[in-house]
């Protein structure tokens, strides 16, 4: 799906827990998810913190979309 969309020329950021799969299918901008049953957030830390984690990740996703990449890039940290 990532490639199908990106071939129209819009950047796609793939937020996915199993990064090796994302790399294999060919996503160019990748953000590692927290866990398979909860990629964006961590409900085991309570709703408030979980939402904070989610916001940070989505912010990182927007930043990744604003970053030029010349190949597959995994954005592991908020600062890049």
């Amino acid at each position, binding site marked *: *799906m*990532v*490639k*199908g*969309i*990106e*071939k*129209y*020329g*819009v*950047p*796609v*950021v*793939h*937020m*996915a*827990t*199993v990064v*090796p*799969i*994302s790399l*294999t*299918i*060919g*996503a*160019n*901008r990748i953000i590692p*998810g927290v*866990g*398979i*049953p*909860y*990629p*964006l*957030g961590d*409900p085991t830390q309570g*709703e408030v913190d*979980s*939402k904070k984690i*989610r*916001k940070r*990740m*989505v*912010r990182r*996703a*927007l930043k990744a*979309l*604003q*970053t*030029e*990449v*010349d*190949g597959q890039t995994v954005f592991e940290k908020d600062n890049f």
Partner: protein
Amino acid sequence: MAKYKIVHYINQFFAGIGGEEKADYKPEVREEALGPGTALVDALGEDFELAATIICGDNYFGENLDEATDTIIEMVKKYEPDVFVAGPAFNAGRYGVACGTICKAVEERLGIPVVTAAYEENPGVDMFRKDVIIVKTGDSAATMRKVLPYMVNIIKKMAAGEEILGPEEENYHERGIRVNYFAKERGSERAIQMLVKKMKGEPFETDLPMPKFDRVPPAPAIKDIKHAKIAVVTSGGVVPVGNPDHIESSNATKFGIYSIEDMDEMTPDKFTTIHGGYDRQFVMENPNLVVPLDVLREMEKDGEFGELVNFFCTTTGTGTATGSAAKFGDEIGKILTEKEHVDGVILVST
């Protein structure tokens, strides 16, 4: 004569421990054959013994790749097997990746021959086909009986140190390894035969298959985020409660488009997930874990980006054919670019 020893790796499901709710099961050793291991032992005959079965939950492995690999390596080492076997994983993606990862590690670190098995569309196949022998299977465990003789044959050859033949003969996924041999006919004759077949429209087999470059170059970055239109797409199976379009919980044949207009967050009374490949309890309670509408609306209000497309596109990513996924991507891409003129897409996968 001493028996050949094998150690077998399987996931929590094939060990009979449980489904998704047990997917975070930590690595464990049992000195008995379990699940597909029992059929393997029967088929291998009395020259072989299954020294141990190692069980690990697919999520645990996927989320703790390095740690899980190290733990399992230590477990395998203790038994000094002649051959290490993993799976078959059939079309289970996380399981296939786990089988490939652990096989590669056992071969590299312990120098023990390894074999696993999976369906051609399992992501583990493309990731590890060059590293390990992956016997071909169908897309479900129903094909176990067909796979078994090929696995057994390879295990026996590995144990005895005999030569494993090519992917055609032994029924494993092509590894991209070239082996020199003397052909019956010289190159010019083969070329003419191929050309004649091609002209007649008959199938022919090339001597040198071209690699498949299935890549899309990265699209240019968003220049002006303050005015950018962003869309959310997911393979996490989030749908309106009641699943109005009957999207399949596995092997999806369609995707859905659902409105999020005038909503500040994804609420569990309106949305749920029908994904058949992970423990759904967290997302059913809070669908924002997959479609992060709550934080996107806040960021939209705060001017962190221009605007959010007022719908999201969704399907189920488990067991779904890569061909179907490519088709969904194409259709979604068309809608998002031609109708919505989006500047960027967030795609969330579980």
